[in-house]
């Protein structure tokens, strides 16, 4: 990003950020906002890179940990498929594709949002949220995107490799449209994960010990990587319409594997991601009203 606007950098505490061109017409104001937020975000990236690189061996070890747990999913699936040929209509390599898609979505979510969501309760407990509230930017923006977890991008690429291998085994040659559609659905899936976890993290305004709840959400990723056809009844209803875990990775995986019989699941996932985001925004605003700075 080239800083073409005069002063896009956030200068905390100075009045420089007040110079937003209020009287100009709205399109240029919009681009001003976008470029301002982009430059803030690039500063946050630089910070994260510096932070990660100061613990290099730890950075690498975490990648090993994630790879190990990713491999663990496959050993579980291989054991299941020792004893069956299909789960519903899902064959082994289709499930591998599903696990890959699920891991991809989870890791990209983790790269951008996870640490920030789990840190929210600490920000509230220690009163550090005050400083973020004072910044002349959207508070949800800084709270959600403060840190970037770079290792997760490496893990996401391992998920891509697995998906490619599974696609080969299935003799799938996805068209460009399929790949683009897949990516769009992944964005919807990531948005859903983010909205739900952010909503859970907002509970920390009510009870300080919310970190347990946020980590509890981690269990739901386990549901997201299982084939949707296994589920019935109340469980299926809850995890489709309330916490849409059975949509977030199953729908993109189905699109890639030519397993979509209608466009209904696609529309449902898109709709649910919008609903989840709106609910989380409402929850966030309701929570912020309760915030009484802890430390001062």
């Amino acid at each position, binding site marked *: 990003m080239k800083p073409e606007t005069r002063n896009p950098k956030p200068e905390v505490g100075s009045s420089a950020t007040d110079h937003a061109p209020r009287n100009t017409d709205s399109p240029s104001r919009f681009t001003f906002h976008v470029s301002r937020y982009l430059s803030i975000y690039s500063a946050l990236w630089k910070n994260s890179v510096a932070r990660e690189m100061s613990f290099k061996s*730890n950075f690498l070890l975490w990648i090993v940990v994630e790879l190990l747990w990713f491999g663990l999913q496959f050993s579980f699936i291989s054991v299941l498929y020792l004893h069956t040929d299909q789960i519903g209509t899902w064959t082994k390599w289709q499930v591998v594709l599903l696990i890959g898609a699920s891991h991809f979505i989870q890791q990209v979510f983790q790269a951008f949002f996870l640490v920030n969501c789990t840190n929210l309760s600490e920000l509230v407990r220690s009163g550090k949220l005050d400083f973020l509230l004072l910044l002349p930017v959207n508070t949800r923006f800084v709270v959600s995107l403060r840190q970037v977890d770079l290792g997760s991008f490496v893990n996401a690429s391992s998920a891509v490799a697995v998906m490619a291998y599974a696609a080969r085994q299935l003799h799938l040659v996805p068209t460009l449209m399929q790949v683009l559609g897949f990516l769009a659905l992944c964005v919807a899936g990531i948005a859903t994960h983010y909205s739900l976890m952010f909503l859970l993290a907002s509970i920390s305004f009510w009870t300080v*010990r919310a970190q347990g709840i946020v980590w509890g959400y981690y269990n739901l990723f386990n549901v997201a990587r299982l084939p949707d056809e296994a589920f019935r009844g109340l469980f299926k209803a809850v995890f489709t319409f309330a916490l849409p875990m059975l949509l977030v990775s199953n729908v993109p995986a189905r699109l890639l594997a030519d397993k979509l019989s209608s466009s209904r699941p696609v529309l449902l996932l898109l709709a649910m991601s919008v609903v989840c985001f709106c609910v989380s925004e409402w929850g966030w605003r309701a929570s912020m009203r309760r915030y009484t700075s802890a430390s001062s």
Partner: protein
Amino acid sequence: MRKYWHVLNVGIQNNLTYRFNFLARAVFGLIPLIAILYVWQKIYSGKAAGATVGPYSLGEMFSYYLLTTVVDALTAVNEDDWQIAADIKDGNISQFLLKPIDYLWYRLCLFLSGRVTYLAVAVTPLTVFILYLHQYFVLPPDWAAFGGFLFSTVLTALLQFFMSYSMAMLAFWVLEVSTFIFILFAFEYLASGHLFPLDILPPGLERALYFTPFPYQLYFPVSIYMGKTTGMELIRGLLIQGLWVVAAYLVARFAWRRGIRRYSAVGG
């Protein structure tokens, strides 16, 4: 021994402040379990009626997962390893070097109090869950199996604790132990029978696993309860499990002694 009794007491009170966390953990923890049960049900429904997977009918498979949940609630290490590592890193262990109290027994008391509190909180969601699936909740075949199960569960808890304690000792040498803990946990998760019963694995692989301590961390007591391990095999298994407990204890003691020599009481 009264001082350790006191530690237990304080530990329970401390842990009670985390009751909400414990409840969240217990409730959320059931979700992946229910999901796995659904997947098994789907797999069995694709087979002929009365078909088995390995030695398991669908009902037995459900019983297996119910039992692992119970044993896990009784024996799993919660946050003890993180806390021990943090104690070392922050220099909190200095006071134990001065006081007439042994850090390992102190932590064991805290571990037990953690389990007691966790059970007190988790008993409600667990009971609801078990009652819902009560037809799969079988009784052990005889009293010997039940006794062996109880004894083995105690050994499992000790093994879990000593292994975690040994892992946490790494904090003397490295700054960040969580990666190592997660790596061990991955192996435990797979090889202890959390994800699937070990006897549906190919026989060679299953036998190989028995050379590691992992099956004794969960699978072994469950197999006793289900009447799969009986007679001489039961006695031999309990002996091996006991040996693993002793080995883990010795490693824990050894690592502590070596670690103390390096310890420089940062921040203490």
